[in-house]
């Protein structure tokens, strides 16, 4: 059963076709990698899924439901969360508040009851605080809760992006180059974290340049080049694919 399905999705910017008739299916519960050289259209695919862009042609199905052209926050409510390639935390808010902002879409109390601090709203606030702290523990940031997001180390800011995305209770979490700027140790811990996310029952879709991470973590890969899908399959299958080797590695096999 596929959780996310792209069906002939195309997006052009002026004369440039950034995503060209891409179809793929992300199986429920998998760790799914989207790879390709710089400018292959990977981030555009993510932006299409999360509703930042609307595809020119094609459909995007999530859980069997057509989400093409839906408003971003509605898509998040349906269960898709993401992190950013360039970190976009709420810099002047504390680590905990960043995660709370992510929790907000799952809360039912309206502004009036929150303002009047009605018992129901207070209970919900307490529950949300507990959940936010749990996400911080999950990502190993519990000791940073009161710090401002901008004061975290680069690696921890990446982790906070993941914690904030997890706070929206996603069934699909999209990670855009989560290991960017991380050292080897941090990357190893990140792979472990990604497996933990999968164990929680979430499906992971990720873009990553660090090939060792991709090969270790992903069960399925789709390879894009110039907006077109050129290969898909398990990491081993993709590794053997001559077209991929040509496109991605400049036909230098030793890099794999």
């Amino acid at each position, binding site marked *: 059963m596929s959780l996310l399905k792209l069906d002939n999705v195309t997006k052009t910017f002026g004369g440039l076709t950034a995503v060209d008739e891409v179809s793929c299916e992300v199986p429920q519960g998998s760790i799914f990698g989207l790879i390709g050289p710089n400018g292959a259209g990977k981030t555009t695919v993510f932006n299409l899924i*999360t509703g*930042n862009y609307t595809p020119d042609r094609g459909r995007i199905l999530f859980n069997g439901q057509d989400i093409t052209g839906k*408003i*971003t*926050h509605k898509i*998040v*409510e349906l269960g898709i*969360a*993401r992190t*950013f390639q360039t970190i*976009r*935390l*709420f*810099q*002047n*808010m504390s680590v905990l*508040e*960043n995660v*709370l*902002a*992510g*929790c*907000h*879409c*799952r*809360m039912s*109390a309206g*502004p009036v009851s*929150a*303002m009047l601090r009605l018992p129901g*709203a207070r209970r919900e*606030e307490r529950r*949300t605080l507990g959940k936010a702290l749990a996400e911080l523990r999950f990502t190993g940031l519990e000791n940073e809760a009161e710090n401002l997001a901008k004061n975290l180390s680069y690696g921890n800011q990446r982790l906070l992006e993941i914690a*904030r*995305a997890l*706070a*929206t209770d996603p069934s699909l979490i999209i990670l855009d180059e989560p290991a960017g700027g991380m050292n080897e140790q941090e990357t190893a811990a990140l792979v472990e974290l990604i497996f933990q996310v999968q164990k929680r029952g979430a499906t992971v879709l990720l873009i990553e340049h660090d090939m060792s991470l991709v090969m270790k973590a992903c069960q399925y890969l789709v390879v894009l080049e110039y907006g077109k899908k050129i290969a898909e399959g398990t990491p081993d299958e993709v590794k053997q694919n001559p077209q991929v080797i040509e496109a991605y590695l400049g036909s230098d096999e030793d890099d794999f």
Partner: protein
Amino acid sequence: MEQFFQQLTNGLAIGGIYALIALGYTLVYGVLKLINFAHGDLFTIGAFLGLSLLTAFSLTDKLGFVLGVSALLLMVVCLVGLVGILLDQAAYKPLRSSHRLSAVVSALGMSIVFSNAIMLIFGASPEVYPHGILPSQVLHIMGLPFPVKRLLLLVTSLVLMVALYTFIQKTTIGAAIRAAAIDQDAARLMGINVNRVIMLIFFIGPALGGAAGVMVGLYYGQIKWTMGWLYGLKAFTAAILGGIGNIPGAMVGGLLLGVIESLCSAYISMAWKDAITFVVLILILIVRPTGLLGERVAEKI
């Protein structure tokens, strides 16, 4: 000493009013980077609605002072908040994706529309709130006289400010509002309904301004259709003084401006009161353009 104390408390009372109005400017600016120049007129609408409701239902006669004034404030807060939402939907929302200046021009236009509408509905001559609604007793604190009504004014504005501050800082909705103020796109991608946040902001800001209007009417008695202009401008100065976009900044800026104005009019010259306010504005813009509590933020390109 007595004069100083009088002027200080007087300054704090009027400063509380400035702070309440300044919060409206700063909230909207924080999320939309828009100076809502129609905000001063929402304050005027609050003052006139307050007078109409007060006399139409003779609230304080029927319900007594505390309940009557609370009911009046609640009604005005809700109504002016709704006017705020309508203002945004009609004048700002259609311009959300256009240049920031378009919305500013729209705000100036709405200010003219509102003030003239008030003049046409309520007349051009000043109106007067009924006398004797606020208690006229005078407290003596360490031998210094302190009118009860001044204390009430100050306490009411402080309560409203603390309530807003707690709401923004301590609730998850508050965190969502601040998140939307920092990065709207990222906020959307965290499932925050930014349009709802903007609606909420356009309810809360005008609601506080409307409350300030009623409070001015009850305290000073006289209201006029042009009053929003000067109060709005001073509150705007207060918001800049504290650092626009910064909520505690608007509170501190308002109280500070009230005290400066009051002390200057007592010790320098009554006639120069308003001029001094704007000298403060100019000095702040020269010396510390980000305001007292504002952070230096690089303009996004």
